[in-house]
C-alpha cells in the first residue's frame, strides 16, 4: 500500500513509462494547505487524480462531544478558518433551534451583516489565491487590501481577526462599538469600486479567459449528482442557495440576487463569486440602513441542556451549504456533532473535473473549488 501511494519514485524509472505519477502536495505552493493530489500524467495531460486528505485532521467533531455547547463554539472557528463567522452562525443557530430560543432582531441583523462581511472576506481570499495560482500577482495584494479592512471591522466588533468566536448561543457577547456602522458604510460604499478594479484586471483579460474558460466543466446534472453546493453548484446554473431556499437569520428581510453561471466552467464560477461579493455588499448596505435597536441577548438558559433528539440546521457558507447535525441525549454536551463540510464534498468533484486537462489546469481547478483544508480534514 505504501508503495502504491508513493507511486513510481523508485529506482529505475522517471519517465520510462508513458505515464508518470506525481504528487502535488502536501507541500505545494498552490494546493491551498496540505491537500495532496496524486496525479497520473501523460506528458502534461492528467489521466487520473486522487485526493489524499487528512493531513490536518484534528478530530473536531469528536472533541466537541466532550465539551459543553457553549465551549464548543470556538472549535468551529478552526474548521473553515477563512470564514469563522459563518461557521459560528451555523452552530449557534442550530443550538438555538434545539433550545427553541428566540433571538432579538438586532442580533439577527448584526449576525447577517457580519456573516456577509465574512463571505466577502472569504471570497476575497479565494480571488487572491486563485488569481495568484494563475499568475496574476497584483490581484492577490489588491484583494488582501480589502480583506484587511474587513478584518479590522471584525476586530472592532469581536476582538479578533481570524478565529473570532463571533456569536454566543442566544445572542452576542457585546453590542456594536460606537461609530461602527459609519465605518461599515464607508467600507461598503467604496467596495463596489474595488470589485470593479479586480474585474478590470481579470474579467476581460484574454489570458485569464483562456486559462479559465472551458476548464473544469461540470454540468448541472453532474453538479447535483456530486452534491456540490455553493458557487460550484450555482456556477453550473442550479439555483440553490440556502439563504433563499430556507431563509435563516434575517435574510428573509433583504433584497438580493443569486448569481448563476451557464457553462459550469472555472470562468463562470469566477463570475458567480465576484457577483456574490457585490450582492453581499448590497445586503450589508441594507443592514446598515435598517439596523434595529434593542437587546443583544435572547432568553437562553444559563446551563444549556437541549432536549433529547436529532437536529439539523444549515446555512449558506461562503463555500457552500454548511450544515450541523447534532444529536442530543439531554446532557450538557452533544452526543454526536457532525458537520456537513461544503468543501469536503465539493472537493470530490476534483477528480472528475481535472481528467483530460493539463497540469496547469489542476491548479486552476483546485483554486476554483475554493477548498479550505481545515474544513476538509476537520
Amino acid at each position: 500500500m505504501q508503495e502504491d501511494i508513493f507511486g513510481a519514485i523508485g529506482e529505475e524509472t522517471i519517465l520510462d513509462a508513458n505515464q508518470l505519477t506525481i504528487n502535488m502536495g502536501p507541500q505545494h505552493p498552490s494546493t491551498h494547505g496540505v491537500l495532496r493530489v496524486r496525479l497520473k500524467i501523460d506528458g502534461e495531460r492528467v489521466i487520473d487524480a486522487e485526493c489524499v486528505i487528512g493531513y490536518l485532521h484534528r478530530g473536531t467533531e469528536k472533541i466537541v462531544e466532550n465539551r459543553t455547547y457553549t465551549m464548543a463554539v470556538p472549535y468551529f472557528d478552526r474548521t473553515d478558518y477563512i470564514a469563522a463567522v459563518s461557521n459560528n452562525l451555523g452552530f449557534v443557530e442550530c443550538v438555538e433551534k434545539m433550545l427553541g430560543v428566540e433571538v432579538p432582531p438586532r442580533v439577527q441583523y448584526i449576525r447577517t451583516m457580519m456573516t456577509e462581511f465574512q463571505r466577502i472576506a472569504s471570497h476575497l481570499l479565494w480571488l487572491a489565491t486563485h488569481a495568484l495560482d494563475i499568475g496574476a500577482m497584483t490581484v492577490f495584494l489588491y484583494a488582501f487590501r480589502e480583506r484587511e479592512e474587513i478584518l479590522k471591522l471584525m476586530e472592532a466588533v469581536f476582538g479578533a481577526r481570524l478565529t473570532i468566536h463571533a456569536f454566543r448561543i442566544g445572542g452576542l457577547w457585546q453590542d456594536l462599538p460606537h461609530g461602527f456602522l459609519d465605518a461599515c458604510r464607508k467600507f461598503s460604499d467604496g467596495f463596489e469600486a474595488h470589485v470593479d478594479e479586480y474585474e478590470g484586471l481579470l474579467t476581460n483579460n484574454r489570458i485569464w479567459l483562456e486559462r479559465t474558460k472551458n476548464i473544469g466543466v461540470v454540468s448541472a446534472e453532474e453538479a447535483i449528482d456530486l452534491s456540490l453546493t455553493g458557487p460550484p453548484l450555482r456556477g453550473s446554473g442550479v439555483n440553490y442557495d440556502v439563504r433563499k431556499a430556507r431563509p435563516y437569520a434575517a435574510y428573509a428581510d433583504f433584497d438580493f440576487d443569486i448569481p448563476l453561471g451557464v457553462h459550469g466552467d472555472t470562468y463562470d464560477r469566477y463570475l458567480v463569486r465576484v457577483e456574490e461579493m457585490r450582492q453581499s455588499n448590497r445586503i450589508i448596505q441594507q443592514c446598515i440602513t435598517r439596523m434595529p435597536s434593542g437587546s443583544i441577548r435572547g432568553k437562553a438558559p444559563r446551563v444549556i441542556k437541549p432536549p433529547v433528539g436529532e437536529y439539523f440546521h444549515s446555512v449558506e457558507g461562503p463555500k457552500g451549504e454548511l450544515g450541523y447535525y447534532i444529536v442530543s441525549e439531554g446532557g450538557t454536551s452533544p452526543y454526536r456533532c457532525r458537520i456537513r463540510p461544503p468543501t469536503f464534498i465539493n472537493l470530490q468533484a476534483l477528480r472528475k473535473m481535472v481528467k483530460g486537462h493539463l497540469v496547469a489546469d489542476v491548479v486552476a481547478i483546485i483554486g476554483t473549488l475554493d477548498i479550505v483544508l481545515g474544513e476538509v480534514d476537520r
Partner: protein
Amino acid sequence: MNAWQILINYAVIPLVKIAVIVGILSGGIAYLTLLERKVIARLQQRLGPMRVGWHGILQPIADGLKFIIKEDVIPLKADKFVFTIAPAISLIPAFVVFAVIPFGPPDSLWGTGGYVTDINIGLLFVVAVSSVGVLGIILGGWASNSKYPLLGALRSTAQMVSYEVAMGFAIIGVLLVANSLSLVDIVQKQKTMGLWFFFVQPVSFLVYYACGMAETNRLPFDLPEAETELVGGFHTEYSGFRFSLYFIAEYANMITVSSLAVTLFFGGWLRPFPNVAALAFLDLIPPPLWFTIKVLTFLYVFIWVRGTLPRFRFDQLMNIGWKVFLPVAMANVIVTSAVLLSFL
C-alpha cells in the same frame, strides 16, 4: 606597432572594459532585483523592502550575502557533476553576450569605442551565445533527478527552442534594413537614416520583445519555473549560491533582451531624433547614459507586465509561438524584402 602597443590594444584595454562591464552588470543586476521589488510594490500599493538601509537600498547586498552563506544542498540522487556545472552554463553566456553590445559610439572612450569589441557577426553572436544558456536549464532540471524539475526542464526546452525561431525571424527584419550584422553598424545606420528602426520595423519589434519575454522566462511566459504549478520548475532542487546563479542569469538575460531591443530598434546610444538639429541640446547627456535610460525603460516594461498579467498555459504558449509570432515574423521578413527590392 611595437609589442607594447599590441599588448595594450589587444589585452589591456579589452580587459579593463570587460572588468568595467562585468562590474556594472553585476551591480546592475543586483539593483534590478531591488528595482523590481520596489516597482511591483508600488503597483500593489505596498512599500517593498524598507529595512536594510535607506528604503532598502542595501537589500541586494544582504540578499547576495545570504545566498553565499546558505548551505549548498546537492540531492543524493543527483548527477553531481552536471548538477554543479549547470548553473554556470546558464550564467556564462548571459554575460558573454555583453562583449558585443555597444554602449557608446566608436569614437568615444578616447577612440577605443564604447564597446568591448565590434565583430562583423555581432547580432548572430548574441543570438548564438544566448541560445547556449538553455542548456544550463535543461541540464539543471535533468541532473536534479526529480520530477518537478524535469517537467520544468522539458517545458523550458520546448519553450525556448520555439521562441528562438520566431525571435530569429523578427531580427532578420532589422538585418535586412541595416544590411549588416554588426551592432555598431546597425546603430550607425539608424543615425544616417535619421530614424530609429522601430519606426521602420514595428512588427519586428513587437515580436522580438514578446519573444524576448518568453526567452527570459518572465511572466506571462514564466512556465519553466511556474511556482504555482511546478513548485520551482527546473531550479526546485537548487539552493544557495547555485540558485542565485540561475537567478542572476535570468536578470542578465532581461538586460540583454532590453539592450538588444534598444540597439536594434531604438537607436542604441543615439539621442531621440538624432538628425534634428533643434534637439542638439539633448547631446549634453552622454551616449552611454542615453543607452542606460532606454534600457531601464524596457526593464520597467518587463516588471510592469509581471505585475499585471496572469500566466499562459503551456499549450497556449506554444500555440502563440508557432501559430502567431512565427508566421507574423516570417511575413514581416517577406514584406520587408519585397519592399527593399522593389523600392530601394
